């Protein structure tokens, strides 16, 4: 089985006067989370979707999945305090259903600009290597600073990447990593960082371009602009 675990737990400092959590912001009448879910709904190799959602918005999400014809969502689980806790909640909730070697694609609800091919590449890589991280080559130099004032190191840009999502794993591997972290009271920014702490080898899958995470108001405008440009491409074939 292939599961997708969608993280839509961000309380968001909501965006705009409505203070809607960002995953529920609408673009042309459709919430961002639905744009994201559609990629998995329409992918033939994805069997089930588990969504980790802000508890206060679970009912709204149910209505939306109904209205937009998203049928693969088998569970909606309340989010935790941080992204890390939310993913762990999701993995725990899946325990009864998931077999050790099932695949879990962990994805952000606010990353709607992915493609069918990226999902396929993730599934294949996770099956083969156990852990697959979507990455984008760094387009600008990455620099390191330990004191937040001076730069101490500028690594060769050719070796540097930015982690995106999906981040995909065999169920047993990722569940055990989160369980271990819970015992040791460790929290990480994403699953890539968690795997790195426990020395789990991760294969890199090259991201499609513009795999942006909508987290500040400008990102919303960028998403809308990119979405429009893509729709126009259908006609003009730019």
């Amino acid at each position: 089985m292939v599961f997708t675990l969608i993280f839509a737990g961000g309380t968001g400092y909501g965006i705009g006067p409505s203070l809607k959590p960002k995953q529920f912001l609408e673009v042309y009448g459709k919430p961002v989370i639905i744009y994201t879910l559609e990629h998995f709904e329409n992918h033939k190799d994805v069997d089930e979707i588990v969504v980790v959602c802000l508890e206060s918005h679970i009912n709204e999400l149910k209505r939306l999945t109904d209205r937009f014809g998203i049928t693969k969502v088998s569970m909606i689980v309340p989010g935790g305090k941080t992204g890390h806790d939310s993913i762990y909640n999701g993995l725990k909730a899946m325990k009864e259903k998931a077999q050790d070697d099932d695949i879990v694609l962990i994805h952000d609800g606010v990353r709607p600009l992915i493609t069918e091919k990226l999902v396929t590449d993730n599934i294949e890589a996770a099956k083969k290597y156990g852990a697959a991280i979507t990455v984008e080559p760094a387009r600008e130099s990455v620099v390191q600073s330990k004191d937040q004032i001076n730069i101490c190191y500028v690594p060769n840009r050719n070796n540097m990447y930015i982690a995106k999502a999906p981040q995909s794993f065999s169920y047993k591997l990722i569940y055990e990593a989160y369980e271990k972290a819970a015992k040791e009271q460790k929290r990480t920014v994403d699953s890539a960082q968690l795997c790195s702490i426990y020395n789990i080898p991760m294969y890199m899958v090259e991201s499609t371009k513009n795999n942006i995470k909508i987290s500040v108001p400008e990102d919303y405008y960028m998403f809308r602009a990119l979405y429009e440009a893509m729709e126009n491409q259908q006609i003009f074939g730019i």
Partner: protein
Amino acid sequence: MTTALILAGGTGTRMNSRVKPKQFIEIHGKPILIYTLEHFEYHEEIDDIVIVCLEDWIEKLKIYLHRFGITKVYEIVPGGPTGHDSIYNGLVTLKKKANPDDIILIHDGVRPLITGELITENIRTVRKSGNAVTVEVIRESVIKSTDGKFVSDVPALNQMFVAKAPQSFYFKDISEVFEQAEKDGFKAIDSAHLMNHYGKTLHMVKSTKNNIKITEPADYYMFRALCQAAENQQIFGI
């Protein structure tokens, strides 16, 4: 004296724009390069501007400067095969008139989304600490891979930044490292990379948001959307 050295030598091979290099692509009737130049034109602490430009476009650029009222440009120099060479060409030209303790702000012609405050902060930091590299906090994990296939390291996120522009230096310091690189046959990705290569300490300035570099078609759409959002804000005060 404080001089802005603007790099506009790129050919735009990634932009799908067969007719125009990316810095000359127009948004609402004004070339991107002009949007960038205006920030320096209107900043009272900038005395003059040197532009490194694609040779074939120098005449056209002169017409644009006149049409859009950019008056501080002291010289236009032809670009080299790489960004490194272009900066070097600019510095060689500056040598004729620059004093060792003049401040040089090196900026990309395709980074129009900066502010007067960012320029001020660059100048202030050079005076205080000797140089200034504009950086942005990273919101996604940074990954290092030495083989391009597997993740070799996930450095602590709170230590990692993305280098942006302007990157600002005393003339004597930046020309010294570029002279040295010329002797050593070393080519750097940007000035921060070069200074780090020669063991110089660099100081960070926090970038304004959305300091994007327009190098791919999607960037163009994002820039246009951000321009529009900023214009709308004047009215709606979002």
